[in-house]
């Protein structure tokens, strides 16, 4: 092997070791001690880099805003709250590693995350093993509160079934029953399209469609096929940038004259980043800022804008609700112990200043899914301001759209 001078070799090893050690010592988090007490630590793992970064950042913003708000009002169980945010980089290995880091090294009491449903699921296996409360603010895949439901996992955002069921009656009523689907070829796309098909066929509709690769950039082939089929509505189930490209090409080809456009989610961040011609169609919003009839919302939006200089989107609301959920559950359970907080969350109803919408918003006991309203409406180019790009036509209660617990396939196992 290598012929080193022993002293030099040892020196190099020592240097490396000291460098490593020093970096880790500096990395240990600063502990904010108020009145000599340990803060309540909440860990959030989200893809701050990668294709989902815009959505993830909004969730972080909402959570940070809630953290400040909670601390101003006295914290959780009398202790200050500290939010620790880690980047999962849209990679499962990293997400799982950061979750372990937050739980083992930083001793967090609650885990929030991830926008990427695959990562959220992998994280839930770790949090379940370590008996830590896990709230998923914005990962949509159904099994998280369905066939893979767990006693410690709760979700804020909707399932694909909820979104599909909410918007279908509106689309059928306004435009007709003959639909064409463009869906991404992976788990989310398949479950979404299946949910739509179920809802549509219940109303006697017919359909055709294409599954496209996730990163597809050119939709011409499919759009031509759609035009030939002559549907009433084109369903754009693609997500993120691919959704935007599909919209752009749809309007470039002038197809909005022949058919209506719709789908499940077209998030505020995405609507704002398309050119005006593509700001169109009928969609679900999981929460919308423009609710002039609800005073709590008006106040919230005004305060949020003042603090962060941006208008909150559904993702901001997810982060906000997640943090307040922890506070509410801990207050009710008078403890931060995983199983106790989880029990307290079942059927917990959110107060109006957290729910920020009319009606009863609660975490359903059977599957741990939050039941908010679903805002069905139309996207359009900005009216009264750059954020006024969506007008709500109907409010569908979550419970109505979700179906029964048995439908989700969730069989909850209580903690040992």
């Amino acid at each position: 092997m290598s012929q080193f001078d022993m002293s030099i070799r040892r020196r190099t090893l020592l240097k490396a070791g000291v460098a490593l050690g020093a970096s880790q010592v500096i990395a240990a988090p600063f502990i904010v001690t108020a009145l000599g007490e340990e803060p309540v630590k909440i860990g959030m793992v989200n893809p701050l880099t990668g294709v989902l970064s815009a959505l993830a950042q909004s969730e972080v913003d909402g959570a940070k805003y809630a953290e400040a708000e909670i601390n101003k009002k006295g914290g959780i169980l009398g202790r200050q709250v500290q939010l620790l945010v880690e980047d999962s980089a849209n990679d499962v290995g990293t997400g799982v590693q950061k979750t372990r880091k937050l739980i083992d090294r930083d001793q967090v009491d609650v885990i929030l995350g991830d926008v990427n449903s695959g990562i959220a699921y992998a994280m839930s296996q770790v949090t379940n093993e370590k008996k830590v409360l896990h709230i998923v603010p914005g990962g949509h895949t159904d099994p998280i509160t369905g066939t893979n439901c767990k006693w410690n996992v709760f979700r804020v955002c909707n399932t694909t079934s909820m979104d599909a069921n909410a918007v279908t009656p509106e689309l059928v009523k306004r435009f007709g029953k003959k639909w064409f689907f463009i869906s991404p070829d992976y788990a989310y796309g398949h479950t979404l399209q299946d949910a739509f098909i179920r809802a549509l066929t219940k109303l006697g509709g017919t359909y055709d469609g294409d599954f496209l690769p996730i990163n597809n950039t050119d939709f011409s082939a499919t759009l031509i096929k759609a035009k030939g089929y002559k549907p009433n509505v084109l369903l754009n189930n693609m997500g993120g940038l691919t959704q935007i490209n599909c919209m752009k090409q749809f309007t470039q080809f002038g197809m909005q004259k022949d058919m209506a456009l719709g789908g499940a989610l077209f998030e505020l961040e995405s609507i704002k980043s398309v050119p005006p011609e593509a700001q169109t169609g009928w969609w679900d919003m999981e929460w919308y800022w423009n609710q002039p009839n609800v005073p709590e919302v008006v106040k919230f939006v005004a305060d949020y804008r003042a603090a962060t200089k941006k208008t909150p989107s559904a993702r901001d609301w997810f982060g906000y609700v997640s943090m307040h959920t922890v506070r509410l559950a801990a207050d009710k359970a008078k403890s931060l112990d995983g199983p106790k907080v989880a029990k307290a969350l079942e059927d917990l109803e959110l107060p109006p200043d957290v729910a920020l919408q009319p009606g009863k918003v609660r975490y359903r006991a059977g599957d741990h899914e939050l039941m908010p309203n679903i805002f069905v409406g139309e996207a359009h180019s900005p009216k009264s301001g750059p954020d006024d790009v969506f007008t709500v036509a109907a409010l569908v209660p979550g419970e109505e759209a979700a179906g029964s617990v048995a439908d989700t396939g969730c069989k909850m196992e209580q903690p040992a």
Partner: protein
Amino acid sequence: MSAFFAAARERLPKGQDLIVLVVIWTLLVTVPFWLPSLGGYTALASKVLVFGLAAMGLNMLLGFTGVLSFGHAAYFGLGAYGAGLTLRYLVHSTPLAMLAGTLFGGLAGTLFGMLIVRRRGVYFAMCTIAFGQLWYYLAYSWNDFTGGFDGLRDFHREPIGFGRFTFDITQGETRFYFFLLAIFAAAVAVMGLLLRSPFGRTLVAIRENERRARFLGIPVERHIWLSFSISCFIAALAGTLYALLNNFADPLTLHYSLSGYFVVMTVIGGMRTFWGPLVGAALFVMLQDYISSMTVNWMSFIGVIFILVVLFFPRGLLGMRRQTRSAGKA
């Protein structure tokens, strides 16, 4: 018989190498005790072991044979998927899953190696990259089988039965870390013996001067192919361990960016040394963990580190202060 033992004893490390060995193994075995006090956590050390093993496997090809593969993540990922698929669809047995994954990744590499063994340099590297991306593409498109974009889930490590005694590795970070350490030790021992054998020396000869090796009658292509295959098997083994660590396999374990990370670990630690890749893996994994917690712009930092290493520290950490060594000694 005595000649055999004498030869074997020749292969064992002695002198300074023995001391290095002892130091490294002492550190590794006591990790759960000193790492948390430095702000680390055991799962991080487990990741270092897994990536370190993969990088050491790559180093056999890159550092010792002088052939660049920039697609080794493919075999790593195939190992992960092989283990995961076995656990999910076939049988709930950890050893079998590890075997299946290692064979899957190793054989894929062996067969592919046959195709490109005549190429060299940059073209060889390009082919390895493209081959890796092929598997990446398959993994994230074949939804029903591999779980597609979201990754392969619904499997987990099973306790290992040794007759009456069962070794439960499903819970507990520390216990799993020692399990990993045991496998790592076995693999590293095999590699070490191989590299000290005539086969290993031949690889170095090929690295130093391929033409001369050929003139000496050494079947160069066959050696390169063997080296490639062995490195793929080791990478695949590391991949199976990764799947067991996360209870998850996802397409990004096949992506060329992970290949790049392996190469960087090898280079940072010191390409032509035996333990270099492990040191490089430790440094890289910890740096990435630390930097990504501090800033969203961690990608720039990592990129800058790559560039600095290439420009200013090409020999890596353990390669930096090398004395001139007599030719031919590994």
